[in-house]
């Protein structure tokens, strides 16, 4: 026993090809899973901090009631190690050289912004620069368009209420250039300490105080727990995740990473399973010999268990040694993409999935075939015994499948993902069984000849068992890789579709009913037709089925829509990007009813027929819910929670009109003429917000592509491992074929064809099951629509055929280089 154990050192193991494959698979598994987990954590932090600049902080507390928050709240925040800042937002008339103009003022404290930077210009022709602080006391930065509207120059003084502030710069972009309809353009930015002296803010003025907080997640969470019981309904606590557009992009990117990690786990399991089965087959003679020498079954079991443990430790150590530099490299790459330094953030708990993957792969996939080695009869030494029928492996496979899907579930935390992938794999194995039957039935009749095609087909038939299991592994690998490519493609398409290049980038708000026609005509003359103008009535949702709405709705739900005035509208037709999910849209004669946005309806627990009461000014309007519809909030078009029919409940209410349209950067000067002609209409410029969103999408895309490349590399290694598992048999066969008179060119062509067919079959299968899995995923996780992806469906089988053909050619190398005599001897 001792001698036998001595034989089993890792060093000796390493000399065996199958052990090298098992170890390589394990190392790659640990490295990939650890790298992805580490990088996902890093990416999330980086993106959140990058997106945090959208709030100019990590969290914002908005007080919409026109009152400042108790000073104790800020003191508490600072005592918890948080940075704080303050902003005051209001609208007022300002007076320039000769004109008045309504502006939206943002007055900021010295600390603003806590996250991100402000882009300013010292004069209209000067260079743009990024600064980390707002204007000082006595100064004001103004929107460049305002400079022209008011016919002013840098250095002039702007009258804000009772104060004269010196225009010291042009405000190009603020990090939290958030999208609020109350923020009426154009913008000026001043110091918060100057607000009192302007005398603009009186009791009852419409003003919003916004407080900024930044610090560690723990401190922020702790502070919020302390703060929450004291918040009033008019207080709103906002984090980056609450912002609709960005949270979606982030959530999707995070899910993609989780999916990537899960696929890495699956790939690893496949690789380990293939390699260890090969290893256990090769070990049968050794086991028989050990038994002959007197080692008992139990001893054999222990021997191999110890080896597995040794491999596990080696795999984990080497895998982590590989993961850390890779992670460092990816982070460097991320830093280059973002064009800013990224702090290396190493979360030790991110390594847990990698360790678990190693343990599960080894014990659920590698151990069963190795455990069965105990049953190898000693008689094998004398006489070759029939091999396993494969039936005894079925319970092991079930355990393995359950284990790996449990692992994926644990890792991704999404049952939907597990079920989608399981479904896809199920479909794959089903088709494979069918294909196996067809292969046997159709190829049985093909009989030789010197033709490479026939020889390749005969080869496929002869190796039908090996071929089918290879196709199964390749197809699974390709399915996993294709799933990832497909999800990436549809994710990006989805984003692209949401924000096309001509997405509306300007809103016109506050259009008086009698100037709607003139406004439309103005823009038509400029060559920009306004597609849809919507009336907008501001009102609160106050009643549900006769009860005050706050009593009727569960206390657990914190619904912002109930805390503020909603924009209500009426419209004859359902907007193109809205979709009715319950009930029916208004028919042309209908005047009663209201259509409610789906998410709000769900949170309020609304059903068709519920009576909603709105308070608009001093009147109340009660209407039944007649339909529930989804809304594309990130479409950059006016969107409404509540829509009424024309001639319905809103008919006599005071309305202004709103629209959005696309205005290319070159045509922006038209806005000056527009503002002069329609001074009461507010123009909201969101082109820079769209730029930021597109920038974030691009960053996420690049990160996703880096992960994709990693996974594809892992897939390639799995394929190489599988092909090399049959290396010896193939080489022996090649040598024998040459001995029996097969020409080199015939051998090369038929082998490449055979592998190409194998790869092609596997590719088609893999892509088909990937489409099925993506179809399921798309429904559950990424909320997109499904379509066939020809750009992936066609090339993957072709690429897979080509890659395998090259693998096949590569395997033949020694067969072609050495004389068949030498090779046959060497392989004996």
């Amino acid at each position: 026993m001792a001698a036998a154990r001595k034989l089993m050192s890792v060093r000796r193991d390493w000399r065996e090809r199958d052990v090298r494959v098992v170890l390589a698979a394990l190392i790659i598994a640990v490295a990939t899973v650890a790298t992805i987990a580490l990088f996902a954590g890093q990416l999330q932090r980086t993106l959140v901090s990058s997106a945090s600049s959208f709030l100019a902080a990590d969290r914002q507390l908005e007080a919409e009631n026109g009152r400042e928050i108790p000073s104790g709240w800020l003191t508490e925040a600072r005592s918890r190690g948080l940075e704080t800042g303050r902003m005051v937002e209001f609208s007022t008339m300002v007076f320039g050289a000769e004109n008045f103009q309504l502006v939206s003022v943002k007055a900021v404290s010295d600390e603003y912004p806590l996250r991100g930077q402000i882009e300013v210009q010292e004069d209209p022709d000067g260079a743009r620069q990024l600064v980390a602080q707002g204007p000082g006391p006595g100064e004001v930065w103004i929107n460049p368009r305002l400079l022209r509207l008011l016919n002013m120059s840098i250095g002039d003084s702007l009258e804000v209420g009772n104060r004269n502030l010196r225009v010291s710069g042009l405000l190009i972009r603020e990090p939290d250039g958030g999208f609020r309809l109350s923020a009426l353009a154009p913008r000026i930015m001043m110091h918060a300490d100057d607000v009192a002296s302007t005398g603009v803010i009186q009791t009852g003025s419409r003003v919003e105080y916004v407080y900024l907080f930044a610090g560690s997640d723990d401190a922020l969470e702790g502070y919020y727990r302390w703060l929450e019981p004291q918040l009033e309904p008019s207080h709103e606590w906002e984090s980056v995740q609450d912002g609709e557009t960005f949270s979606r992009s982030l959530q999707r990117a995070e899910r993609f990473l989780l999916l990537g990690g899960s696929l890495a786990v699956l790939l690893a399991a496949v690789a380990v399973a293939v390699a260890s089965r090969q290893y256990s087959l090769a070990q049968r003679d050794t086991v028989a010999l050990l038994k002959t020498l007197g080692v008992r079954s139990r001893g054999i079991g222990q021997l191999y268990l110890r080896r597995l443990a040794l491999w596990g430790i080696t795999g984990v150590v080497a895998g982590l040694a590989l993961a850390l530099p890779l992670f460092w490299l990816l982070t460097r790459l991320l830093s280059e993409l973002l064009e800013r330094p990224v702090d290396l953030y190493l979360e030790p708990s991110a390594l847990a999935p990698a360790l678990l993957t190693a343990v599960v792969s080894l014990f659920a996939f590698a151990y069963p075939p190795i455990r069965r080695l105990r049953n190898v009869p000693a008689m094998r030494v004398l006489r070759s015994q029939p091999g396993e029928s494969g039936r005894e492996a079925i319970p092991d496979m079930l355990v393995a499948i359950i284990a790996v899907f449990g692992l994926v579930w644990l890792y991704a935390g999404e049952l939907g993902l597990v079920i989608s992938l399981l479904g896809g794999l199920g479909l794959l194995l089903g088709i494979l069984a069918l294909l196996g039957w067809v292969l046997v039935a159709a190829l049985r009749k093909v009989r030789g000849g010197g033709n490479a095609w026939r020889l390749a087909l005969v080869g496929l038939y002869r190796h039908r068992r090996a071929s089918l299991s290879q196709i199964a592994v390749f197809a699974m690998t390709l399915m996993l890789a294709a799933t990832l490519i497909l999800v990436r493609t549809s994710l990006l398409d989805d984003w692209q579709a949401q924000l096309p290049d001509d997405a509306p980038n300007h809103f016109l708000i506050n259009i008086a009913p009698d100037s709607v026609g003139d406004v439309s005509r103005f823009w038509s003359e400029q060559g920009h037709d306004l597609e849809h103008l919507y009336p907008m009535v501001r009102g609160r949702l106050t009643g549900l089925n006769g009860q005050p709405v706050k009593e009727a709705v569960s206390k657990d739900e914190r619904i912002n829509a109930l805390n503020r005035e909603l924009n209500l509208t009426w419209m004859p037709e359902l907007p193109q990007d809205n979709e009715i999910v319950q009930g029916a849209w208004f028919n042309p004669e209908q005047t009663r009813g209201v259509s409610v946005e789906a998410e709000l309806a769900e949170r309020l627990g609304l059903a068709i027929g519920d009576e909603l009461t709105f308070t608009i000014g001093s009147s109340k309007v009660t209407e039944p819910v007649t339909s529930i519809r989804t809304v594309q909030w990130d479409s950059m078009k006016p969107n409404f929670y509540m829509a009424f029919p024309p001639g319905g409940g809103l008919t006599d209410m005071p309305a202004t009109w709103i629209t959005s349209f696309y205005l290319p950067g070159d045509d922006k000067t038209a806005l000056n003429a527009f503002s002069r002609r329609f001074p009461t209409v507010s123009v909201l410029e969101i082109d820079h917000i769209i730029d930021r969103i597109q920038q974030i999408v691009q960053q996420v895309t690049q990160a996703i592509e880096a992960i994709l490349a990693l996974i594809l590399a892992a897939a390639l290694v799995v394929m190489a491992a599988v092909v090399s598992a049959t290396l010896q048999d193939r080489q022996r066969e090649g040598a024998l074929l040459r001995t029996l008179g097969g020409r080199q060119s015939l051998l090369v062509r038929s082998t490449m064809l055979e592998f190409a067919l194998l790869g092609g079959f596997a590719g088609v299968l893999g892509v088909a099951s990937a489409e099925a899995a993506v179809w399921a995923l798309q429904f559950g996780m990424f909320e997109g629509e499904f379509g066939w992806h020809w750009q992936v469906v066609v090339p993957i089988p072709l690429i897979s055929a080509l890659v395998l053909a090259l693998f096949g050619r590569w395997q033949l190398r020694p067969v072609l280089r050495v004389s068949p005599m030498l090779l046959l001897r060497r392989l004996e």
Partner: protein
Amino acid sequence: MNQMTDFNAGQPQPMLRVSNLTHRVSLETDTLTILKGVNLEINRGESVAIVGRSGSGKTTLLGLLAGLDTPSEGAVELDGARISEFGEDERAKLRASRVGFVFQSFQLLPAMTALENVMLPLELAGIENPEARARELLGRVGLEERLNHTPRQLSGGEQQRVAIARAFASDPVVLFADEPTGNLDNRTGHAVSDLLMALNREQGTTLVMVTHDEHLAARCGRQFSIEAGELTEPSPAQEAAD
């Protein structure tokens, strides 16, 4: 038909003619000479045994005679064709049509059934209806009941019978056998060598056999012995005794 077959038709020509054959292999540090100036002539239909100890160079000689490898020096003519000057593919073509092999370790492909193993050379040679011919040959070696068994399901003797059937499948003019009974017990070895001899006589094949089994060697028409890469001419006494 090509020129090689028609080479000096009608004249008794040797099937194999070897002149001054030398073979060296390069090792890491030096060069090892395995065969030293071997000369040999074997006539059509003859059966010849080459005996020698392990490592004497007999298997290397067999490989060179069969065109599996090319010599460092010297020439090999097989059926009138100077194969030592042939390219790899020309030699392969020649092997497919004129040479059969029987190996000590059988060299059957484990993924294939007995039938498929025998069909392999027929398919490579592009012969029509390879299955019928393969069945017939397997019947001839007494394995008609085991057509669909894989090598793993066959005993050593049975595997060698499949290999013999495969060797005769493409109607070779010369058969090379490398220790054909080396992996078999005495009785099975006898049965297999009986079969080999019988088939050889029936088909009129030239047989070149490498062995260290003197009994088997004694059943051949001529015997050569090889030692340290040098081939010794058969003594006339031995020839007369046969």
